[in-house]
């Protein structure tokens, strides 16, 4: 029974944890500019994340080491520097975007400028991390994140032609703006496949004390969580395709998204959109701040656990404290949040090889994985992903140049 509850919780984490500022923004932009045509990017993103989450969860459950531990221990400091620095830079940018997302949700709700919300939000997030436990952060964020189901309701209310939505799940060549199309595809991929997500997930497996007996929990969680989560991101794309595309509305500012659900759901749509934006971004703020602290603490061998009193792992707790404050500063200064989000997502996509490629090695190492090494299917998926991540890295910067505007 306890395991069932755990799985249920995991699935909820998937649903609640999937939508955040990045996938909201990029899916909406994709739908608004290319209709259902970019659905495949959302699908590919969630399948990829599923593969990586399953692998990093399995790695942690079997070896009792997190992904970050393994990266340092198996590859040495010179190699580890790459995931460390890249992971830090990218996660800091995404964290800032998430704080921006919450701030904008509050601005739209109250009329008080978003800059003024940055510090109160940072403080509240810090307080929850300082006083709360891992399960509070994980489950609390996930439960509240369920509000994002409103996008599925909204999409259904608009009666899309589901066959057309399905057709978008297969990649096709765009009729116009090729560079922009691929730029958005890469952004959507970056928004779904975030290193902080699977780093957080593998640390969570250790925080929750997973063993080989939990491998099926891991499998079900990563599969169902991402199916539902990816499904919701697809619904954002569908809603944007039905509401914004026919009116030629491009998403150039988050403020425009406040009316994305009103044609379908009226006032409820407005309220629930703001709630989704605010809550999911806030939950993700907590998760990324922790993920950054995990990355540093595990990489350098510090004491770490969200379940300990800050006094017992002071370097870890001071890290997330400092990081939240640091990331609130750009928002406080009034940076363009949508621009920041877009850049963060492309950089996230470009950062994938430094974690995905070594994962191919780790998942095939019998010293680490014992009997649970990758099988043929898992290997093909992971290797395909590694190749794809390298291709994305090569394409990301030219695409930012050509399609970013």
């Amino acid at each position, binding site marked *: 029974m306890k395991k069932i509850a755990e799985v249920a919780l995991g699935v909820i984490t998937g649903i609640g944890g999937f939508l955040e500022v990045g996938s909201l923004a990029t899916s909406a932009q994709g739908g608004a500019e290319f209709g259902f045509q970019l659905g495949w990017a959302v699908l590919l993103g969630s399948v990829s994340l599923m593969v990586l989450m399953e692998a990093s969860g399995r790695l942690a459950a079997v070896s009792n080491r997190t992904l970050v531990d393994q990266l340092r221990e198996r590859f*040495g400091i010179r*190699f580890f520097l790459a995931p460390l620095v890249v992971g830090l830079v990218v996660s800091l940018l995404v964290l800032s975007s998430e704080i921006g997302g919450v701030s904008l949700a509050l601005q739209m709700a109250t009329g008080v400028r978003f800059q003024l919300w940055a510090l109160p939000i940072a403080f509240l997030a810090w307080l929850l991390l300082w006083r709360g436990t891992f399960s509070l952060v994980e489950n609390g964020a996930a439960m509240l994140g369920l509000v994002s189901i409103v996008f599925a309701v909204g999409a259904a209310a608009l009666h899309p032609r589901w066959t057309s939505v399905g057709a978008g799940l297969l990649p096709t060549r765009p009729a116009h703006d090729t560079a922009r199309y691929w730029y958005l595809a890469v952004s959507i991929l970056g928004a779904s496949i975030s290193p902080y997500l699977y780093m957080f997930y593998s640390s969570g497996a250790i925080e929750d004390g997973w063993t080989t007996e939990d491998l099926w929990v891991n499998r079900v969680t990563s599969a169902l969580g991402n199916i539902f989560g990816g499904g919701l991101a697809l619904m954002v794309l569908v809603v944007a395709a039905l509401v914004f595309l026919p009116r030629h509305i491009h998403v150039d500012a988050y403020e425009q998204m406040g009316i994305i659900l009103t044609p379908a759901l009226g006032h409820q749509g407005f309220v629930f959109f703001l709630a989704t934006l605010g809550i999911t971004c806030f939950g993700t703020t907590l998760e990324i701040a922790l993920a950054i602290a995990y990355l540093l603490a595990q990489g350098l061998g510090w004491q770490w656990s969200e379940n300990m009193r800050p006094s017992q792992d002071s370097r870890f707790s001071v890290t997330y404290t400092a990081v939240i404050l640091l990331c609130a500063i750009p928002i406080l200064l009034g940076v363009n949040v949508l621009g920041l989000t877009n850049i963060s997502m492309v950089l996230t996509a470009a950062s994938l090889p430094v974690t995905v490629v070594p994962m191919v*090695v780790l998942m095939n190492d019998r010293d680490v994985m014992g009997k649970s090494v990758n099988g043929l299917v898992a290997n093909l998926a992971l290797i395909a992903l590694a190749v794809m991540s390298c291709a994305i890295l090569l394409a990301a910067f030219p695409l930012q140049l050509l399609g970013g505007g």
Partner: protein
Amino acid sequence: MTREIRVDLLEGRMVRDPAGRRVGRIRELIAEVAHPGSGEYVVREFHLSTGGLVEALGGAHLARVLTQRFGRRPTGLVIGWQDLDLSDAARPRLRRPVAEIAPPAKER
């Protein structure tokens, strides 16, 4: 006379033979108990690899794990401690030509 050397800085160093030809990079040091029952460990072997691109990029572990999984052991040399001259730690040298030193590493 004793001198200290950092293993972490030795790893990856190119070893040359007495004639100055490159032999391979130091990838692993195997230590064993000095005498049964004592807590003292001594280095018995140095493992060298004739590094390729993979090793240059990912270091010893990546190379080893890859070869282990996809092609058995890496091509490499096992050098006994007495055959490696570490008097200049930045430029390790073999005391004898490779041909005289033990045959290539066997599969474990």
